[in-house]
Protein backbone atom coordinates (compact mmCIF):
# COMPACT_ATOMS: atom_id res chain seq x y z
CA UNK A 1 0.00 0.00 0.00
CA UNK A 2 1.27 3.44 -0.80
CA UNK A 3 1.88 5.76 2.07
CA UNK A 4 -1.00 8.07 2.44
CA UNK A 5 0.49 11.38 3.35
CA UNK A 6 -2.00 14.02 4.17
CA UNK A 7 -4.32 11.86 6.18
CA UNK A 8 -3.14 13.33 9.38
CA UNK A 9 -1.29 16.55 9.13
CA UNK A 10 0.11 18.54 11.91
CA UNK A 11 2.41 21.47 11.96
CA UNK A 12 5.13 20.77 14.46
CA UNK A 13 7.95 22.97 15.48
CA UNK A 14 11.10 20.91 15.60
CA UNK A 15 13.77 22.36 17.78
CA UNK A 16 17.45 21.90 17.38
CA UNK A 17 19.64 22.06 20.44
CA UNK A 18 19.71 25.55 21.81
CA UNK A 19 22.71 26.33 24.00
CA UNK A 20 20.55 25.87 27.09
CA UNK A 21 19.33 22.48 25.85
CA UNK A 22 22.85 21.38 25.04
CA UNK A 23 23.92 22.48 28.48
CA UNK A 24 21.11 20.46 29.99
CA UNK A 25 22.25 17.37 28.13
CA UNK A 26 25.94 17.80 28.86
CA UNK A 27 25.55 18.78 32.50
CA UNK A 28 24.49 15.36 33.82
CA UNK A 29 27.30 13.71 31.89
CA UNK A 30 29.84 16.15 33.33
CA UNK A 31 28.47 15.71 36.83
CA UNK A 32 28.71 11.95 36.44
CA UNK A 33 32.28 12.20 35.17
CA UNK A 34 33.29 14.47 38.03
CA UNK A 35 31.55 12.24 40.56
CA UNK A 36 33.35 9.19 39.22
CA UNK A 37 36.62 11.08 39.50
CA UNK A 38 35.87 12.23 43.02
CA UNK A 39 34.88 8.75 44.12
CA UNK A 40 38.05 7.34 42.59
CA UNK A 41 40.10 10.03 44.32
CA UNK A 42 38.56 9.29 47.69
CA UNK A 43 39.25 5.62 47.43
CA UNK A 44 41.24 4.05 50.25
CA UNK A 45 42.58 1.55 47.83
CA UNK A 46 46.38 1.87 48.06
CA UNK A 47 46.69 1.02 44.42
CA UNK A 48 50.17 1.89 43.28
CA UNK A 49 50.23 4.46 40.58
CA UNK A 50 52.19 3.23 37.57
CA UNK A 51 55.30 5.15 36.83
CA UNK A 52 54.07 6.28 33.47
CA UNK A 53 51.02 7.84 35.07
CA UNK A 54 53.01 9.54 37.83
CA UNK A 55 55.40 11.20 35.45
CA UNK A 56 54.47 14.62 34.19
CA UNK A 57 53.41 14.34 30.57
CA UNK A 58 56.11 15.29 28.19
CA UNK A 59 55.37 17.51 25.26
CA UNK A 60 55.93 14.61 22.86
CA UNK A 61 53.57 12.21 24.62
CA UNK A 62 50.29 11.61 22.77
CA UNK A 63 47.31 13.26 24.35
CA UNK A 64 44.70 10.65 25.33
CA UNK A 65 41.30 11.24 23.74
CA UNK A 66 38.61 12.90 25.80
CA UNK A 67 36.38 10.25 27.38
CA UNK A 68 32.99 10.16 25.70
CA UNK A 69 30.13 10.09 28.19
CA UNK A 70 28.24 6.86 27.80
CA UNK A 71 24.53 7.41 27.40
CA UNK A 72 22.64 4.46 28.82
CA UNK A 73 20.36 2.77 26.29
CA UNK A 74 16.67 3.35 26.91
CA UNK A 75 15.03 0.02 27.57
CA UNK A 76 11.61 -0.75 26.22
CA UNK A 77 8.81 -0.45 28.72
CA UNK A 78 6.59 -3.43 28.11
CA UNK A 79 3.00 -3.20 29.25
CA UNK A 80 0.12 -5.60 29.20
CA UNK A 81 -2.90 -4.04 27.55
CA UNK A 82 -6.39 -5.42 27.12
CA UNK A 83 -6.86 -9.16 27.25
CA UNK A 84 -10.01 -10.33 25.47
CA UNK A 85 -10.98 -13.89 26.32
CA UNK A 86 -9.61 -16.25 28.92
CA UNK A 87 -5.91 -16.81 29.19
CA UNK A 88 -3.91 -18.12 32.17
CA UNK A 89 -1.92 -15.38 33.91
CA UNK A 90 1.44 -17.11 33.45
CA UNK A 91 0.89 -17.49 29.75
CA UNK A 92 -0.18 -13.86 29.47
CA UNK A 93 3.17 -12.71 30.79
CA UNK A 94 5.13 -14.95 28.46
CA UNK A 95 3.06 -13.94 25.43
CA UNK A 96 3.27 -10.23 26.15
CA UNK A 97 7.04 -10.52 26.42
CA UNK A 98 7.28 -12.57 23.25
CA UNK A 99 5.12 -10.21 21.19
CA UNK A 100 6.84 -7.14 22.58
CA UNK A 101 10.12 -8.80 21.55
CA UNK A 102 8.96 -9.10 17.94
CA UNK A 103 7.92 -5.44 17.98
CA UNK A 104 11.16 -4.38 19.58
CA UNK A 105 13.22 -6.09 16.90
CA UNK A 106 11.40 -4.03 14.28
CA UNK A 107 12.02 -0.78 16.20
CA UNK A 108 15.71 -1.59 16.41
CA UNK A 109 16.10 -2.73 12.81
CA UNK A 110 14.02 0.09 11.35
CA UNK A 111 14.97 3.11 13.43
CA UNK A 112 17.44 2.63 16.25
CA UNK A 113 20.23 0.31 15.25
CA UNK A 114 22.47 0.23 12.22
CA UNK A 115 25.39 2.36 11.31
CA UNK A 116 24.34 5.94 10.58
CA UNK A 117 24.56 7.59 8.12
CA UNK A 118 22.55 4.70 6.78
CA UNK A 119 20.87 4.01 3.47
CA UNK A 120 20.24 0.28 3.66
CA UNK A 121 16.91 -0.61 5.25
CA UNK A 122 16.32 -3.88 3.46
CA UNK A 123 16.44 -5.87 6.68
CA UNK A 124 14.27 -3.48 8.62
CA UNK A 125 11.31 -5.81 9.06
CA UNK A 126 12.27 -8.89 11.04
CA UNK A 127 9.18 -10.75 12.19
CA UNK A 128 6.98 -9.37 9.38
CA UNK A 129 5.19 -11.74 7.01
CA UNK A 130 6.33 -11.56 3.39
CA UNK A 131 3.23 -9.60 2.37
CA UNK A 132 3.57 -7.15 5.25
CA UNK A 133 7.26 -6.76 4.43
CA UNK A 134 6.43 -5.83 0.82
CA UNK A 135 3.84 -3.35 2.00
CA UNK A 136 6.15 -1.87 4.66
CA UNK A 137 8.95 -1.48 2.09
CA UNK A 138 6.61 0.62 -0.01
CA UNK A 139 5.99 2.71 3.13
CA UNK A 140 9.68 2.71 4.09
CA UNK A 141 9.92 6.45 4.71
CA UNK A 142 7.50 5.93 7.59
CA UNK A 143 8.18 2.37 8.59
CA UNK A 144 11.94 2.98 8.82
CA UNK A 145 14.35 5.90 9.04
CA UNK A 146 14.89 5.80 5.27
CA UNK A 147 13.82 9.44 5.01
CA UNK A 148 16.48 10.62 7.46
CA UNK A 149 19.10 7.88 7.35
CA UNK A 150 21.75 9.41 5.14
CA UNK A 151 21.60 12.81 6.83
CA UNK A 152 22.05 11.72 10.41
CA UNK A 153 24.95 10.37 12.44
CA UNK A 154 23.18 8.89 15.40
CA UNK A 155 19.81 7.97 16.83
CA UNK A 156 19.32 8.53 20.51
CA UNK A 157 16.19 6.95 21.96
CA UNK A 158 14.25 9.05 24.43
CA UNK A 159 11.31 6.79 25.02
CA UNK A 160 10.09 3.42 23.84
CA UNK A 161 7.02 1.59 25.03
CA UNK A 162 5.19 -1.42 23.70
CA UNK A 163 1.71 -2.30 24.99
CA UNK A 164 0.27 -5.64 23.97
CA UNK A 165 -3.45 -6.41 23.58
CA UNK A 166 -4.39 -10.06 23.20
CA UNK A 167 -7.31 -11.96 21.76
CA UNK A 168 -7.71 -15.41 23.28
CA UNK A 169 -10.17 -18.02 22.13
CA UNK A 170 -10.41 -21.50 23.67
CA UNK A 171 -7.70 -20.65 26.18
CA UNK A 172 -5.15 -19.88 23.45
CA UNK A 173 -3.91 -16.53 22.18
CA UNK A 174 -4.97 -16.16 18.55
CA UNK A 175 -4.15 -12.58 17.67
CA UNK A 176 -2.46 -9.56 19.14
CA UNK A 177 -2.09 -5.82 18.72
CA UNK A 178 1.18 -4.22 19.75
CA UNK A 179 0.77 -0.52 20.46
CA UNK A 180 4.05 1.26 19.93
CA UNK A 181 5.51 4.56 20.99
CA UNK A 182 9.09 5.37 20.07
CA UNK A 183 10.58 8.82 20.54
CA UNK A 184 14.11 9.58 19.45
CA UNK A 185 16.45 12.41 18.67
CA UNK A 186 18.94 12.36 15.85
CA UNK A 187 22.41 13.84 15.56
CA UNK A 188 23.90 15.20 12.38
CA UNK A 189 20.78 16.83 11.14
CA UNK A 190 18.92 17.27 14.35
CA UNK A 191 15.40 16.05 14.58
CA UNK A 192 13.08 14.85 17.25
CA UNK A 193 10.90 12.10 15.91
CA UNK A 194 7.97 10.15 17.26
CA UNK A 195 6.72 6.87 15.87
CA UNK A 196 3.33 5.78 17.16
CA UNK A 197 0.85 3.21 16.02
CA UNK A 198 -0.06 -0.42 16.03
CA UNK A 199 1.29 -3.65 14.69
CA UNK A 200 -1.11 -6.54 14.13
CA UNK A 201 0.14 -10.03 14.79
CA UNK A 202 -0.98 -13.62 14.46
CA UNK A 203 0.94 -16.85 14.80
CA UNK A 204 2.48 -18.58 11.83
CA UNK A 205 4.35 -21.84 12.30
CA UNK A 206 4.33 -21.28 16.05
CA UNK A 207 5.91 -17.83 15.82
CA UNK A 208 4.28 -14.44 16.16
CA UNK A 209 4.44 -12.56 12.89
CA UNK A 210 3.39 -9.05 11.97
CA UNK A 211 0.76 -9.17 9.21
CA UNK A 212 -0.31 -5.53 9.28
CA UNK A 213 0.40 -2.12 10.69
CA UNK A 214 -1.08 1.32 11.19
CA UNK A 215 1.75 3.68 12.00
CA UNK A 216 2.30 7.43 12.12
CA UNK A 217 5.64 9.21 12.13
CA UNK A 218 6.27 12.83 12.77
CA UNK A 219 8.09 15.48 14.73
CA UNK A 220 8.02 15.36 18.49
Amino acid sequence: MQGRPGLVRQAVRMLGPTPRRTARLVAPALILTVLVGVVSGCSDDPRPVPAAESDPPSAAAPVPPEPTPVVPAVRTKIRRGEITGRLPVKRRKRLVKEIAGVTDRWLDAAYVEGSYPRTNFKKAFPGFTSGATRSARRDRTLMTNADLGKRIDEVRVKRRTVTVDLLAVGGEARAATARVHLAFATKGVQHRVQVTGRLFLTQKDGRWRVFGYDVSKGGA
Partner: protein
Amino acid sequence: MNTRALRTLLLVVVLALAVLVVPDSSVGPTDVALVKVRHAAGVEMQRSVIWILAIGSDARRGQDMLRSRGDAIQLVGIDPRTGTATAIGIPRDSWVAIPGHGREKINSALYFGGPQLMSRTVGNLVGVRPDYVMVTRFPFFEDMVDSIGGIDVRNPRRFSDPYLYETGFRTGRIHLDGYGAMAFSRVRKMLPGGDFDRSANQQRTLRGIHAKIRANAHQPGFMESGVMTVLQHLATDLPPAELFKIAQAVAQVEAAKISTCVVPGAIGRVGAQSVVLPSFAAARRYGDDARNDATIGRC
Protein backbone atom coordinates in the same frame (compact mmCIF):
# COMPACT_ATOMS: atom_id res chain seq x y z
CA MET B 1 -7.19 52.44 10.70
CA ASN B 2 -5.62 53.54 7.40
CA THR B 3 -3.28 51.37 5.35
CA ARG B 4 -0.16 53.23 6.37
CA ALA B 5 -0.90 52.93 10.07
CA LEU B 6 -1.68 49.26 9.62
CA ARG B 7 1.62 48.68 7.82
CA THR B 8 3.50 50.50 10.59
CA LEU B 9 1.79 48.44 13.25
CA LEU B 10 2.60 45.25 11.38
CA LEU B 11 6.24 46.24 11.15
CA VAL B 12 6.36 46.93 14.88
CA VAL B 13 4.83 43.53 15.64
CA VAL B 14 7.27 41.73 13.33
CA LEU B 15 10.24 43.54 14.90
CA ALA B 16 8.99 42.79 18.39
CA LEU B 17 8.63 39.12 17.51
CA ALA B 18 12.10 39.10 15.96
CA VAL B 19 13.56 40.43 19.19
CA LEU B 20 11.88 37.62 21.09
CA VAL B 21 12.72 34.86 18.65
CA VAL B 22 16.25 35.60 17.44
CA PRO B 23 18.71 34.10 19.93
CA ASP B 24 21.22 36.43 21.47
CA SER B 25 24.11 33.97 21.50
CA SER B 26 26.62 33.46 18.75
CA VAL B 27 25.46 29.89 18.28
CA GLY B 28 23.63 29.28 14.99
CA PRO B 29 19.93 29.98 14.94
CA THR B 30 17.54 27.40 16.21
CA ASP B 31 16.47 25.06 13.45
CA VAL B 32 12.82 25.36 12.75
CA ALA B 33 11.21 22.87 10.43
CA LEU B 34 7.64 22.40 9.47
CA VAL B 35 6.92 18.73 9.24
CA LYS B 36 3.84 16.73 8.76
CA VAL B 37 2.89 13.61 10.63
CA ARG B 38 2.63 10.95 8.01
CA HIS B 39 0.63 7.80 8.21
CA ALA B 40 1.02 4.36 6.71
CA ALA B 41 -1.15 1.32 6.99
CA GLY B 42 -1.21 -2.07 5.42
CA VAL B 43 -2.61 -5.50 6.06
CA GLU B 44 -1.45 -8.66 4.36
CA MET B 45 -4.17 -10.91 3.03
CA GLN B 46 -3.76 -13.94 0.82
CA ARG B 47 -5.39 -12.15 -2.12
CA SER B 48 -5.08 -8.58 -3.29
CA VAL B 49 -8.86 -8.07 -3.04
CA ILE B 50 -10.87 -10.09 -0.57
CA TRP B 51 -14.53 -10.66 -1.33
CA ILE B 52 -17.03 -11.24 1.46
CA LEU B 53 -20.63 -12.13 0.82
CA ALA B 54 -22.54 -10.65 3.75
CA ILE B 55 -25.99 -12.10 4.27
CA GLY B 56 -28.64 -11.04 6.74
CA SER B 57 -30.77 -14.09 7.31
CA ASP B 58 -34.49 -13.94 8.02
CA ALA B 59 -34.24 -17.06 10.24
CA ARG B 60 -36.33 -16.92 13.39
CA ARG B 61 -35.09 -18.27 16.71
CA GLY B 62 -34.67 -22.03 16.54
CA GLN B 63 -34.38 -22.07 12.75
CA ASP B 64 -31.14 -23.11 11.05
CA MET B 65 -29.66 -19.82 9.90
CA LEU B 66 -27.58 -21.50 7.20
CA ARG B 67 -30.69 -23.00 5.63
CA SER B 68 -32.88 -19.94 5.69
CA ARG B 69 -33.52 -17.17 3.17
CA GLY B 70 -31.17 -14.23 2.93
CA ASP B 71 -32.95 -10.92 3.41
CA ALA B 72 -29.92 -8.71 2.88
CA ILE B 73 -27.35 -9.70 0.26
CA GLN B 74 -24.23 -7.60 -0.16
CA LEU B 75 -21.04 -8.62 -1.92
CA VAL B 76 -18.25 -6.62 -0.29
CA GLY B 77 -14.77 -6.29 -1.78
CA ILE B 78 -11.82 -4.92 0.18
CA ASP B 79 -8.38 -4.05 -1.13
CA PRO B 80 -6.12 -3.83 1.93
CA ARG B 81 -3.23 -2.47 -0.17
CA THR B 82 -5.06 0.70 -1.07
CA GLY B 83 -7.71 0.99 1.64
CA THR B 84 -10.51 0.85 -0.92
CA ALA B 85 -13.76 -1.09 -0.65
CA THR B 86 -16.90 -1.63 -2.62
CA ALA B 87 -20.31 -3.14 -1.94
CA ILE B 88 -22.48 -4.60 -4.66
CA GLY B 89 -26.05 -4.85 -3.44
CA ILE B 90 -28.20 -7.62 -4.81
CA PRO B 91 -31.97 -7.27 -4.46
CA ARG B 92 -33.31 -10.17 -2.47
CA ASP B 93 -35.99 -11.03 -5.02
CA SER B 94 -33.61 -11.19 -7.99
CA TRP B 95 -34.76 -13.96 -10.32
CA VAL B 96 -31.65 -15.93 -11.25
CA ALA B 97 -30.45 -19.42 -12.12
CA ILE B 98 -29.50 -21.39 -9.00
CA PRO B 99 -27.17 -24.29 -9.90
CA GLY B 100 -29.14 -27.53 -9.64
CA HIS B 101 -32.43 -25.81 -8.83
CA GLY B 102 -33.50 -23.98 -11.97
CA ARG B 103 -34.63 -20.35 -11.76
CA GLU B 104 -35.58 -19.04 -8.37
CA LYS B 105 -35.26 -15.93 -6.23
CA ILE B 106 -31.59 -15.54 -5.36
CA ASN B 107 -32.23 -15.58 -1.63
CA SER B 108 -33.49 -19.16 -1.77
CA ALA B 109 -29.98 -20.38 -2.74
CA LEU B 110 -29.08 -20.25 0.94
CA TYR B 111 -32.12 -22.35 1.78
CA PHE B 112 -31.38 -24.93 -0.94
CA GLY B 113 -27.65 -25.34 -0.49
CA GLY B 114 -26.31 -23.22 2.35
CA PRO B 115 -23.46 -20.68 2.04
CA GLN B 116 -21.60 -22.66 -0.65
CA LEU B 117 -24.53 -22.60 -3.08
CA MET B 118 -25.28 -18.99 -2.22
CA SER B 119 -21.66 -18.15 -3.01
CA ARG B 120 -21.82 -19.92 -6.40
CA THR B 121 -25.12 -18.26 -7.31
CA VAL B 122 -23.92 -14.76 -6.50
CA GLY B 123 -20.59 -15.55 -8.21
CA ASN B 124 -22.45 -16.51 -11.39
CA LEU B 125 -24.44 -13.29 -11.35
CA VAL B 126 -21.61 -10.83 -10.64
CA GLY B 127 -18.68 -12.78 -12.06
CA VAL B 128 -16.74 -12.56 -8.81
CA ARG B 129 -16.69 -15.57 -6.49
CA PRO B 130 -16.71 -14.60 -2.80
CA ASP B 131 -13.79 -15.74 -0.65
CA TYR B 132 -15.94 -15.72 2.46
CA VAL B 133 -19.63 -15.95 3.21
CA MET B 134 -20.81 -14.47 6.47
CA VAL B 135 -24.35 -15.03 7.63
CA THR B 136 -25.97 -13.37 10.60
CA ARG B 137 -29.52 -13.19 11.82
CA PHE B 138 -31.12 -9.88 12.64
CA PRO B 139 -31.34 -10.11 16.47
CA PHE B 140 -27.58 -10.71 16.60
CA PHE B 141 -27.00 -7.97 14.08
CA GLU B 142 -28.84 -5.63 16.44
CA ASP B 143 -26.64 -6.70 19.35
CA MET B 144 -23.53 -6.07 17.30
CA VAL B 145 -24.62 -2.56 16.37
CA ASP B 146 -25.53 -1.85 20.00
CA SER B 147 -22.15 -3.15 21.15
CA ILE B 148 -20.40 -0.45 19.11
CA GLY B 149 -22.68 2.27 20.43
CA GLY B 150 -24.99 2.52 17.43
CA ILE B 151 -24.20 3.99 14.03
CA ASP B 152 -24.76 7.16 12.01
CA VAL B 153 -26.23 6.99 8.52
CA ARG B 154 -27.21 9.55 5.89
CA ASN B 155 -30.83 8.99 5.03
CA PRO B 156 -31.84 10.52 1.66
CA ARG B 157 -35.59 10.41 2.28
CA ARG B 158 -38.06 10.24 5.12
CA PHE B 159 -39.81 6.90 5.50
CA SER B 160 -41.49 4.79 8.11
CA ASP B 161 -43.00 1.37 8.51
CA PRO B 162 -46.10 0.66 10.60
CA TYR B 163 -44.78 -2.72 11.69
CA LEU B 164 -41.02 -2.26 12.00
CA TYR B 165 -40.51 1.46 12.78
CA GLU B 166 -43.65 3.47 13.19
CA THR B 167 -41.99 6.73 14.20
CA GLY B 168 -40.06 6.71 10.96
CA PHE B 169 -36.60 7.78 9.85
CA ARG B 170 -36.14 11.47 9.15
CA THR B 171 -34.07 12.82 6.28
CA GLY B 172 -30.40 13.62 6.84
CA ARG B 173 -27.78 12.28 9.19
CA ILE B 174 -29.44 10.06 11.78
CA HIS B 175 -28.20 7.94 14.65
CA LEU B 176 -29.48 4.37 14.82
CA ASP B 177 -29.29 1.87 17.62
CA GLY B 178 -29.26 -1.84 16.88
CA TYR B 179 -33.01 -2.13 16.36
CA GLY B 180 -33.10 1.04 14.29
CA ALA B 181 -30.27 -0.22 12.07
CA MET B 182 -32.12 -3.48 11.57
CA ALA B 183 -35.37 -1.71 10.66
CA PHE B 184 -33.55 0.79 8.42
CA SER B 185 -32.03 -2.16 6.52
CA ARG B 186 -35.22 -4.20 6.25
CA VAL B 187 -38.02 -1.78 5.40
CA ARG B 188 -38.99 -2.22 1.75
CA LYS B 189 -42.66 -1.59 1.09
CA MET B 190 -42.63 2.08 2.07
CA LEU B 191 -39.67 2.91 -0.19
CA PRO B 192 -40.35 4.19 -3.71
CA GLY B 193 -37.63 1.97 -5.18
CA GLY B 194 -38.70 -1.06 -3.13
CA ASP B 195 -36.05 -3.78 -3.08
CA PHE B 196 -33.46 -1.55 -4.79
CA ASP B 197 -33.83 1.25 -2.23
CA ARG B 198 -33.70 -1.26 0.58
CA SER B 199 -30.44 -2.64 -0.74
CA ALA B 200 -29.05 0.90 -0.93
CA ASN B 201 -30.12 1.45 2.69
CA GLN B 202 -28.28 -1.72 3.68
CA GLN B 203 -25.19 -0.21 2.12
CA ARG B 204 -25.71 2.97 4.15
CA THR B 205 -25.86 0.78 7.24
CA LEU B 206 -22.62 -0.95 6.22
CA ARG B 207 -20.97 2.45 5.78
CA GLY B 208 -22.16 3.44 9.25
CA ILE B 209 -20.77 0.26 10.80
CA HIS B 210 -17.48 0.72 8.99
CA ALA B 211 -17.17 4.34 10.14
CA LYS B 212 -17.73 3.28 13.74
CA ILE B 213 -15.16 0.51 13.50
CA ARG B 214 -12.59 2.79 11.90
CA ALA B 215 -13.14 5.54 14.47
CA ASN B 216 -12.63 3.13 17.35
CA ALA B 217 -10.01 0.77 15.92
CA HIS B 218 -7.20 2.51 17.80
CA GLN B 219 -8.85 1.98 21.17
CA PRO B 220 -7.12 -0.70 23.19
CA GLY B 221 -8.93 -4.02 22.87
CA PHE B 222 -11.67 -2.66 20.57
CA MET B 223 -10.83 -4.86 17.60
CA GLU B 224 -10.19 -7.89 19.77
CA SER B 225 -13.51 -7.61 21.58
CA GLY B 226 -15.24 -6.90 18.25
CA VAL B 227 -13.85 -10.11 16.81
CA MET B 228 -14.97 -11.97 19.92
CA THR B 229 -18.51 -10.60 19.50
CA VAL B 230 -18.51 -11.58 15.85
CA LEU B 231 -17.31 -15.08 16.74
CA GLN B 232 -20.23 -15.42 19.11
CA HIS B 233 -22.82 -14.02 16.70
CA LEU B 234 -21.80 -15.11 13.25
CA ALA B 235 -21.99 -18.51 11.65
CA THR B 236 -18.42 -18.96 10.53
CA ASP B 237 -15.86 -21.72 10.38
CA LEU B 238 -13.06 -19.21 10.05
CA PRO B 239 -10.26 -19.42 12.59
CA PRO B 240 -10.21 -16.41 14.94
CA ALA B 241 -6.85 -15.26 13.58
CA GLU B 242 -8.27 -15.11 10.06
CA LEU B 243 -11.25 -13.15 11.32
CA PHE B 244 -8.92 -10.76 13.11
CA LYS B 245 -7.06 -10.19 9.84
CA ILE B 246 -10.30 -9.45 8.00
CA ALA B 247 -11.39 -7.08 10.77
CA GLN B 248 -8.11 -5.19 10.53
CA ALA B 249 -8.47 -5.03 6.74
CA VAL B 250 -11.95 -3.54 7.22
CA ALA B 251 -10.59 -0.99 9.68
CA GLN B 252 -7.96 0.14 7.17
CA VAL B 253 -10.58 1.03 4.55
CA GLU B 254 -10.97 4.78 4.11
CA ALA B 255 -14.53 6.12 4.00
CA ALA B 256 -13.75 8.27 0.97
CA LYS B 257 -12.60 5.20 -0.92
CA ILE B 258 -15.84 3.25 -0.58
CA SER B 259 -18.02 2.83 -3.66
CA THR B 260 -21.44 1.20 -3.56
CA CYS B 261 -23.87 0.15 -6.28
CA VAL B 262 -27.07 -1.86 -6.34
CA VAL B 263 -27.63 -4.23 -9.25
CA PRO B 264 -30.46 -2.58 -11.22
CA GLY B 265 -33.37 -4.38 -12.83
CA ALA B 266 -37.07 -4.39 -13.53
CA ILE B 267 -39.99 -5.58 -11.44
CA GLY B 268 -41.77 -8.54 -12.99
CA ARG B 269 -44.04 -11.41 -12.15
CA VAL B 270 -43.35 -15.11 -12.30
CA GLY B 271 -46.57 -16.95 -11.61
CA ALA B 272 -47.98 -15.38 -8.49
CA GLN B 273 -44.61 -14.07 -7.33
CA SER B 274 -43.39 -10.52 -7.67
CA VAL B 275 -39.73 -10.71 -8.63
CA VAL B 276 -36.81 -8.53 -9.64
CA LEU B 277 -35.42 -9.18 -13.09
CA PRO B 278 -31.83 -8.10 -12.58
CA SER B 279 -29.66 -6.54 -15.24
CA PHE B 280 -27.04 -9.25 -15.76
CA ALA B 281 -24.96 -6.88 -17.87
CA ALA B 282 -24.80 -4.32 -15.06
CA ALA B 283 -24.01 -7.00 -12.45
CA ARG B 284 -21.13 -8.28 -14.61
CA ARG B 285 -19.88 -4.78 -15.26
CA TYR B 286 -19.71 -4.05 -11.52
CA GLY B 287 -17.86 -7.31 -10.96
CA ASP B 288 -15.40 -6.66 -13.79
CA ASP B 289 -14.85 -3.11 -12.63
CA ALA B 290 -14.14 -4.01 -9.00
CA ARG B 291 -12.46 -7.40 -9.39
CA ASN B 292 -8.87 -6.20 -9.06
CA ASP B 293 -9.11 -2.99 -7.07
CA ALA B 294 -12.42 -3.06 -5.12
CA THR B 295 -13.59 0.09 -6.86
CA ILE B 296 -16.61 0.74 -9.07
CA GLY B 297 -16.13 3.87 -11.11
CA ARG B 298 -19.80 4.44 -11.96
CA CYS B 299 -23.03 2.65 -11.07
